[in-house]
């Protein structure tokens, strides 16, 4: 996130070497070990960023997690039902306003969403603009193919625009939720969506021990890199290493699960999952939820008023 008051500087850099366990110096593209390390570092960075922004004072941070979760789901459904680009753009602008009101750096927020879009959506959607994929009224002819006019079609362009806007708005909504809610609260909020108690317990423990296992695997990868002298790539060795580290990690995970089970028994666990219930919803949360539901209905209704 850009402009964070308390975020350490190394978290804000996107270069390799930003994270203490990353490599310094020039990065060798294509090395599986480096890529895995980068991915692991990114998980830790995102988790710390979320915790840090969730602790800031702001509009969304002050709301109850349950109200936020339900409102985000309602808005996601509404966004899914919308069929006009201007309506989607309006909802997207609203997410920007909410981000600003929740003291989330706007540049980082926009970047996080739009860095994802070109990689996945842009690549997938680009061919859909052509008459090969989406037949219809050709607005930009590019030539002829066996007697048929080919080019960009109105239907294809509209469809591509719709997808890009809808994906961007949906991701923005989810990112708003994750950046403003600490995970224990989000977890207990899942109970309101009728997620079984056992699953909530498993989710919480999985998230907690995810970082313990992540440390182990980072250490394994770093140790392997420290022992690797040759600069060239060794595909066979690296493939074997994936098997070793996967197997060793499973061994650690299983041993840890046994220890946790014993610790749970020692503390009186009898096979029933319990979660900490949180305080009642305040009036502000109710107002927020109602406002979001009304907005969702308004968005879908307004969209239908514009025509199907």
């Amino acid at each position: 996130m850009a402009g964070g008051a308390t975020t350490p500087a190394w978290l804000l850099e996107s270069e390799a070497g930003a994270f203490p366990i990353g490599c310094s110096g020039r990065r060798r593209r294509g090395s599986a070990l480096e890529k895995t390390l980068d991915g692991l570092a990114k998980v830790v960075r995102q988790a710390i960023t979320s915790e840090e922004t969730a602790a800031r004072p702001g509009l969304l941070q002050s709301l109850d997690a349950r109200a936020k979760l339900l409102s985000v789901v309602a808005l996601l459904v509404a966004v899914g039902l919308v069929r006009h680009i201007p309506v989607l753009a309006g909802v997207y602008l609203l997410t920007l306003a909410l981000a600003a009101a929740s003291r989330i750096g706007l540049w980082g927020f926009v970047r996080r969403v739009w860095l994802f879009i070109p990689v996945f959506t842009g690549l997938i959607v680009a061919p859909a603009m052509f008459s090969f994929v989406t037949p219809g009224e050709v607005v930009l002819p590019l030539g002829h193919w066996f007697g048929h006019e080919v080019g960009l079609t109105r239907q294809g362009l509209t469809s591509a625009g719709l997808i890009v806007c809808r994906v961007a708005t949906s991701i923005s909504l989810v990112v708003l939720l994750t950046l403003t809610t600490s995970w224990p609260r989000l977890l207990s909020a899942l109970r309101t969506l009728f997620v079984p108690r056992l699953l909530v317990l498993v989710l919480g423990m999985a998230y907690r021990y995810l970082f313990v296992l992540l440390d182990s695997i980072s250490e394994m990868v770093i140790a392997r890199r420290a022992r690797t002298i040759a600069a060239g790539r060794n595909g066979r060795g690296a493939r074997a290493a994936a098997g070793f580290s996967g197997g060793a990690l499973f061994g650690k995970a299983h041993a840890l699960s046994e220890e946790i089970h014993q610790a749970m028994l020692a503390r009186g666990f009898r096979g029933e999952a319990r979660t900490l219930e949180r305080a009642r919803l305040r009036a502000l949360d109710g107002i927020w939820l109602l406002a979001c539901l009304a907005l969702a209905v308004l968005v879908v209704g307004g969209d239908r008023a514009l025509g199907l």
Partner: protein
Amino acid sequence: MHIPDGYLSPATCAVTGAAMVPVIGTACARVKRVVKDRHAPLLALGAAYSFLVMMFNIPIPDGTTAHAVGAVLIAVLLGPWAAVVCVSVALVIQALFFGDGGVLALGANALNMAFVMPFVGYGVYRLAAGNTSLTSRRRALAAGIGGYVGLNAAALCAAIELGLQPTLFHSANGTPLYAPFHLAQTIPTMALAHLTIAGAAEFILTLGVVAYLQRANLPLLRINHPGVVDTDEELAPTRRLPALRWALIGIATMIILSPLGLLAPGGAYGEDAPIDLNPHSYGLSAIPGGLQHYNGFWKHTLLADYGFASGRHASLGYVLSAALGALAVGAAILLFVAVGRAVARRRPDVQTG
């Protein structure tokens, strides 16, 4: 393969989500019954493991790297029902905490990667591993093949979900409202990517981990393989019917693949109806009288031309024809075998088998 929000219509998300509810419920109940009160930590660590395995970059022989899903690996290690819960939880963490994969699309993603993939892959693994010992090479290879097939089954499901969108959801002027590609485009694209790069990554990871555990940590493999002996020497000699089993596997594969006929263009050579024939291309002046006369000889067919009489729902008619045909042939074979056995029993002097 993580489908983000916005590609699938809310209706598709609702249907796939509803389909996953009983699956997750059954999985929780079964795991709870098998491992008693140990289920919570085991599932939680399995889910954390599943999350991390998805982050491994596996080097592919062509020099690039790819991520594996690891659902079949967890099915081999902890059983398919545990894999359902572990992979689902990993997907929830990815969607809610890291924004990878959609929140509304969670049902669809879980259906593909947490249900279809572990069950198809585990089935293939069991079939391919057969009655081998825990340390046999064939078992490790079977796990790799299971991973490969499971991943491709999941990719096929994702391709179908995405490919149905433009057909089911479009506006009045034909603008696709969600994912814009049709089945004829999504299935080959997903198949190409997953049969090669992603499939190779899944194969390498699943085989590698199982082979490592065979050498280094056999007790971990015993968790999900009670009663399987450790080495080939301990195997009891068993009567085997390899030929019959392979024949049945081949026939089952053909039955499963029969919907591919829907994609094939044109008709079969030499099976044209007289009206579709061009007699001049064969040096004839008219349709031969015998062909003309006997062509309409039998009209009492149930599903003429592998479809309904009305000509609507062609695909459904084709699949129904294939299913009925397979059933009829199977019933005929069973009847034939039963009659043969009855006759053989009546004549005890005939040497059989």
